[in-house]
């Protein structure tokens, strides 16, 4: 599905290059469920953002569905991104001014999906996540767990092949966290969505089929189950 080869990311600090990602090579196949772990500041979010094309690496090659992302223009990249990737954040990042329904609908609008079709897709998603009753509420009126459900629903609405999640349960209690992880597992198994998540929790990491440990911008260990 994707292949990173000798990817580095550094910031110029004074005269020195401060490497946040240091020569990482990584292949992820379709249908995998990868958990990335590591201490704070080890570069997990940066790596995820590079995979998600939100951030550019300083050097290295990046292939996504066999296409060279590192050679692409902004526009092509954004088209590729829209088609394949969904993002979930630790802080949910819902748009406060929009209702639950509209938050979920927004990606479809940016993909020029027709109105009637959008309605059906959003209704479907609300149904699936059991939040039909909440569709007209604003984010501020929801609990953290509910907000993250909406965040995930929004990430999935456009049927992405790859779901990227940066500490999706970081702000949730363990019971809410478990529900989200169950949902991920189901998505991965039943719908074949490839998932890459960043987490600090061993327990949540074990939902994945592979755990990658980062330390100082390098892959320290990687094990498959």
């Amino acid at each position: 599905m994707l292949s990173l080869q000798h990817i580095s990311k550094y910031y110029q600090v004074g005269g020195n290059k401060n490497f946040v990602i240091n020569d990482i090579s990584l292949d992820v196949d379709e249908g995998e469920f990868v958990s990335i772990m590591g201490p704070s500041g080890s570069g997990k979010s940066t790596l995820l953002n590079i995979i998600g094309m939100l951030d550019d690496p300083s050097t290295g090659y990046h292939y996504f569905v066999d296409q060279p992302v590192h050679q692409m223009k902004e526009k092509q990249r954004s088209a590729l991104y829209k088609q394949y990737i969904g993002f979930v954040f630790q802080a949910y990042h819902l748009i406060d001014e929009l209702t639950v329904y509209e938050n979920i609908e927004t990606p479809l609008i940016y993909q020029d999906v027709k109105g009637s079709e959008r309605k059906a897709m959003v209704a479907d998603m609300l149904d699936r996540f059991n939040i039909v009753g909440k569709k007209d509420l604003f984010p501020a009126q929801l609990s953290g767990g509910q907000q993250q459900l909406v965040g995930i629903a929004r990430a999935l609405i456009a049927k992405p092949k790859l779901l990227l999640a940066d500490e999706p349960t970081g702000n949730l209690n363990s019971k809410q966290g478990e529900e989200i992880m169950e949902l991920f597992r189901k998505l991965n198994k039943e719908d074949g969505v490839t998932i890459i998540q960043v987490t600090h929790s061993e327990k949540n990491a074990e939902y994945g089929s592979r755990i990658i440990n980062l330390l100082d911008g390098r892959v320290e260990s990687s094990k498959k189950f």
Partner: protein
Amino acid sequence: MIKNYLKTAWRNLLQNKATSFISIAGLAVGICCFLLLATYLINELRYDRFHQKADRIVRIIQNHKSPDYNEVNTIAVTPTAPVPVFKQQLTDVEDGVRIIDYSDMRPAIVQFGDKLFKEKNVLMADGSFFKIFSFKFISGDAGSALGNSSSIVITASTATKYFGADNPIGKILKVDGTNNMMVTGVVEDVAEYSQIKFDMVGSYAMMPRSLIRKWDSANDYSYLLLKPSADRVATERKINTYLDSLYKNDLAAGEKIWYNLEPLTSIHLYSTAGGLEPSGNIKYVYILGIVAVILLVLACVNFLNLVTARSAERSKEIGVRKVMGAQRKQLFFQFITEAGIITLVSLIAGVVFASFCFPAFSDFSGQALNFNTWNITWLVTAILGLFFIVTLLAGTYPSLYLSAFKPVVILKTKSTGAAGGNTLRKSLVVFQFIVSVFFIISTLIAGNQLKYMQNLNTGMDRSQVMVLDIGGMPFNNLEPFKNAIAQNPGITGATASYNSPVNVRGGYSINSADGKNSDFNLPVTAAPIERNFIKTMGMTLVAGRDLDLGDEQQVRKDSLRQYSFILNETAIAAMGWKPEQAIGKHIGLNGRTGTIKAVAKDFNFSSLHQKIEPLVIFPEYDWFGKLLVKTNGKNTAATIAVMEAQWHKFYPNSPFEYHFLDHEFEEMFKTDQRTGSILQAFTLVTIFISCLGLFGLAVFSTRQRVKEIGIRKVLGANVMSIVGLISSDFLKLVLIAVIISSPLAWYAMSAWLQDFAYRIDISWWVFLLAGGMAILIAFVTVGYQSFKAALSNPVKSLRSE
């Protein structure tokens, strides 16, 4: 997609009520002022353009250069001959008309049955008047209305005044007791934006002067209609060639007379020659135009400022939208849509405000202004134009700025950081305050100048002097009337003069004098007066003795009239004499000969825009325009009642009317006062808009700094130090604005003051005061926010982080 933009935009607007209100209020006020000013400007620019042949009509003005006087004397009137002669002799001239301002010196007394009115707007014009100018006829025919020497055309409201609902055509109006004139036409009331304004136009042929073609004694306003093929400048050249040969033998060496042709449509704004009504001033058109644009820009700047200030809050939304696949273009349109909605709401509010403000603004500007002043396509174009310009001006930068945010930068840092654009916002606040301070300084200086003019010692005592129109009243009744009212203890003196002493206009010249060449010629202003004039008006003589009864009797003799002249110091200096030397010297003034009896200390006898010029006053035998009555100021109402009773006894056929000389004096700088009040109004508006902007920024900056403030408080900062911390940021900006603005205002107002011959020096305290005011206003605006922030509970603000 657009529906989605609109929805979010609308919700955003409602959700941030404070900011939305500030943006909309600022923009609405800006748009309102812009529309008002634009209306005023349109009115100025459409002046006289309603005549179908406007582009072919010119006015003749006459220039005279005397060898003994440096300045060229330009007047907007000509003798009687030029119009008929040019019409005959120049192929370029299709038609022409002479107009006499019949009621200029004194109102005409017009009678119909038992109805008697003083008419102040009566013209007499050649029969071609209504063929050249396009005044709309309600009844009667433009071609023939003034065909007869006793024809008169009146306006609709004049017709109602005299005849009510009756048909005016064929009715006879008695003008000044002797002339019976028949109404041959009724025209619509003359528009405000016409330099030729009248209530009645009678036939020029009614006056004896129409019979003689004279090349001297200029009294007629002369307009020519040029042929479509004619070139104005070439025609002017032909006219002057003609004049050169005409005057060849009559002019002294170095003396010169020539004409200019002024296009009708440029007279109101460009002519300095005067005319049927005081001209506007193209300078004010430019100034007000600039003010209009500046106000609009200020309002846009406000909006722009508030939107970019909110960028910190919106950065998260922008980041999320980008992660969800929004392209920059789409975000740009979203923000532009928001700007568009705010603009639309403001535009509606602004148009509504403006329509409410029109009556007051019309009073203010002395012109009947409303949306009808616009032609409808212009209005629609202007409003659409405003919509797009304001939207783009206010929306483009923030939209570009916001849509360029990089999502990683925003989303990675969990805070809502990204508070960029600070320098820009600060510069904009500085810009707003530069404009505000500029206006404050200008208003203060203009106010000082106006006060200075009002209180200037003009060399005469205007206080408690009432002015009565006595032009055309039987001269023999004057003395008895004066004696009768003098019985009243409230009246301390009464004296007649040709013109009002604050506005003496007669153009004469001294053309012979002891010790000067035979072709000596000094143009002077001159006016007949009575013997008590100097005393009653509180003037001073620097040499010689005041006029007495003997001097008056001397000029009333039928033969061997000898005049006693009083010249002002300037005239004496222009003659090259010292005051003491001048006494007893013989001079001739347009045929009147006599000796100089006294030299008067200079006093201002016309607009304070002009320096005091040479003036001659002298006793005359039988005609005066004004009676000046000095009262002691006590129980004025009773004094007036007594005067009115006496008036009706002596002048039964004429209404009693009076005004105060002080008032007349102030009327003379009404345009300046008007400019002053317009300046004042717009100062308030700019301050208001700038304060809105500052207030908005203060709200955001305190909101952004709640955490910092909380921490400082926990660390022990007291309220005052926090208020100081926040306020000083803004006050610094205002201070910078004051520093930049002061020299600009100084420069501009110095230029404005150049127009006044009598002007104040700009003093330093004006700048200090203006700066102090700006800082105070800014402090009040920001202070509330600072206090609120300083008083808030730190635990709360820190927990919410």
